[in-house]
């Protein structure tokens, strides 16, 4: 008994001896208010570099890339009111002060951020980074460096949004929509709600990374523009070839893209022409279904895309059409079908020209026809070429299910 007690005492002593040095360090403790919580980052071309900014360039032998201008949006602790009611109705008006927008230039993203950090007392913290906006011009030069930096940084979440801005990305950082206390969160909410309404595919930065490195697929990103009300409009998809942006689609083509991918929920509307100037009916898509078959014909992949859409009547232009029997719905289906196929074909042709397979047809080939893939394709570059020659058949099925609360 006494012996084991002695040992226990020695053990206790050792444990204390070992824990005391631990107490001396709280190496990683960094209070939340000491962090500069970065909510959004935008990346532009450097443009004009002021003298002040030139001073901060200290690298002897800079890399041979063009300079970038990085703008960050930092949440100011204490300015954003705690809880909903506490400081009255000033939530809308106070937006200007809740955030601090800072910018800096550098040879790479990290370099620019380092320059930025020099101007800040608190450490930049990317754990809550929700939106990264890259200007179109930077994106067309390639996202390699940007992808690498945000991939490597363990604080950045995979559920952040990466978007391409038409024109200056910094303007988006400065935009101050009235609805949300924090503008970046509004931007994020625009896209998140877009997913829920079926207007936009769920395509976070993580999905983009995954897609753009896949052998038989290319990445795409939301293409946004700022409107005069300081709000943001998703005006299409920016599609990529490898790391370089190669083109954009129109807004309506997002719907087509989602149709081919069979993404749900569906939310796009289309005018159906029933043969007359005022005989237009607005239809909304409610559900999408797709099935893609791949065959190898003449040494080239040939895809048959079966798409089935469920649509509903949303409005009509005049009383000239009476939606009162099933045959008129049939007519609507036929018309919408032809329109849909046209949009789908257009979109695919457009991406084929640019060699950017954002649909992942190549992945289909790799998965379903591994023999063909292994002998004829193998690499991403080969597929980018082969995609241009791939052929597509469409078989679209439209089903009008509902007409709303009105009987005709």
């Amino acid at each position, binding site marked *: 008994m006494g012996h084991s007690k002695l*040992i226990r005492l020695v*053990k206790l002593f*050792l*444990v204390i001896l*070992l824990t005391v040095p*631990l107490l001396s*360090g709280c*190496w*990683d403790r960094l209070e939340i208010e000491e962090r500069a919580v970065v909510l959004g980052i935008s990346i532009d071309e450097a443009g004009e570099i002021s003298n002040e900014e030139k001073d901060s360039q200290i690298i002897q032998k800079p890399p041979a890339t063009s300079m970038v201008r990085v703008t960050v949006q930092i949440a100011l602790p204490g300015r954003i009111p705690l809880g909903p009611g506490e400081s009255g109705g000033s939530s809308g008006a106070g937006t200007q002060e809740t955030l601090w927008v800072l910018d800096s230039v550098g040879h790479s993203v990290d370099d620019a951020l380092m320059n930025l950090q020099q101007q800040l007392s608190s450490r930049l913290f990317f754990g809550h980074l929700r939106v990264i906006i890259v200007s179109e011009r930077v994106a067309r030069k390639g996202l390699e460096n940007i992808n690498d930096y945000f*991939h490597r940084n*363990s604080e950045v*979440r*995979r*559920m952040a949004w990466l978007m391409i801005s038409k024109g200056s990305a910094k303007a988006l950082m400065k935009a101050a929509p009235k609805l949300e206390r924090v503008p970046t969160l509004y931007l994020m909410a625009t896209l998140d709600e877009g997913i829920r309404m079926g207007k936009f595919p769920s395509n976070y930065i*993580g999905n983009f*990374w*995954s*897609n753009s*490195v*896949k*052998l038989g697929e290319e990445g795409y990103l939301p293409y946004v523009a700022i409107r005069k009300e300081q709000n943001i409009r998703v005006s299409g998809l920016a599609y990529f070839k490898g790391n370089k942006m190669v083109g954009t689609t129109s807004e309506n083509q997002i719907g087509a893209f989602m149709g081919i991918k069979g993404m749900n929920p569906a939310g796009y509307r289309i005018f159906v022409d029933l043969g007359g100037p005022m005989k237009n009916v607005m239809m909304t898509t409610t559900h999408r279904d797709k099935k893609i078959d791949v065959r190898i014909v003449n040494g080239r992949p040939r895809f048959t895309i079966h798409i089935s859409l469920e649509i509903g009547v949303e409005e009509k232009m005049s009383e000239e059409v009476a939606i009162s029997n099933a045959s008129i719905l049939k007519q609507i289906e036929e018309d919408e079908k032809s329109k849909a196929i046209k949009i789908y074909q257009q979109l695919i042709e457009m991406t084929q020209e640019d060699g950017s397979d954002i649909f*992942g047809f190549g*992945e*289909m080939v*790799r*998965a*379903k026809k*591994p023999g063909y*893939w*292994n002998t004829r394709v193998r690499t991403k570059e080969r597929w980018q070429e082969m995609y241009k020659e791939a052929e597509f058949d469409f078989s679209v099925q439209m089903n009008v299910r509902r007409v709303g609360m009105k009987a005709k």
Partner: protein
Amino acid sequence: MENTRQITTIQAAAILVSTIIGVGVLPLPLFAVRAGDAGAPLVTFLGMLVGFIGLMLISLLGMRFPKQSFVQYSEAIIGKWLAAIGTLLLIAFFAILTSLAAREFGEVVVTSVLKNTPLEVTVIVMLLLAAVSTRNNLVTFSYIHLFYFPFLLGPALLIVALSLKNADVINLQPVWGNDQTHMLPGILTIAALFQGSFVMTIVIPGMCDPKKSMKASFIAMLIAGGMYVAIVIAAVGVFGSEEIKNLLWPTLELAKATSLPANILERLDAAFLAVWVTAVFTTLFSSYYLTIRFISNLFRLKDHNMFSFFLLPFVFIMAVIPQNILQMYEIIADVGRIGLFITVGYPAFLFIISLIRGKRGDRDGTQQTNPAS
């Protein structure tokens, strides 16, 4: 003396599962994808089968000699000196395995969560935790494993379940992968992740019914292997094999990409890593306990407690030897493959010799060889 044969089949299976599942899960999809692209789940499955063969041999041996420890019956089979060499190899191997696991987890923690904390601190904390806990008897050892068992399966299954909704079946096809040339070394690398199952050698002598050790091994392999395969499927399904090649710890990235419904927690990586401390702890605990048990068996000591702190500095020094993370992973891969000879080859050798020489410990062994407590 109290009755030491208290470990039930479920406890034995829990010990095996929580020993096998450890820090190796974090880079697992990367290893599997490097070997088999989209066929990564298949590679994992095959690796599991290889691991199971090793475990099966150990169980068979243990069932032949249910009353003796591994060190004792290896001496009975191939003689004292040969067996001593084998045991020493095993001791060295598991000491290295312990240190590498501690180091690997330390690297993960330092890279992703505690960036400014010295690596040595995280490593020594983990090792201390294991060392303090080894000062218990086999029964408490099994209790500890049984208790943490749900804490291993829960978070891993949660992440798999939550991420599967983002998975794409295309990423998993073709199931045998596009390129089979690297498969074999990959299978061995993954089989090496199952080496913790060697702990079965010290569990069997404490089981209520050693006859059921095969059943326990089978259940454990089904759970552990099933979880490995599930994690690989989830990771490949969500990221695609090419993206996984860009990620050092795809499982952690999977946790990062997952958020709990209703945004209770927006990302799970730090939380997952925190819970995963228990998984790493149980692995370290087992391999450290195994090392210490083998040493005390080899030198025929009654008390194994004195070694638990004596060995600590050596293990710690081995843990800090690798200079950087990439070198560490090279060492881990090499050690793992060499280890297969020790943890699978050696028992196989013993089993064959015992078959040839007709040695058994379960019928008449009690009279011939003096069973220790």
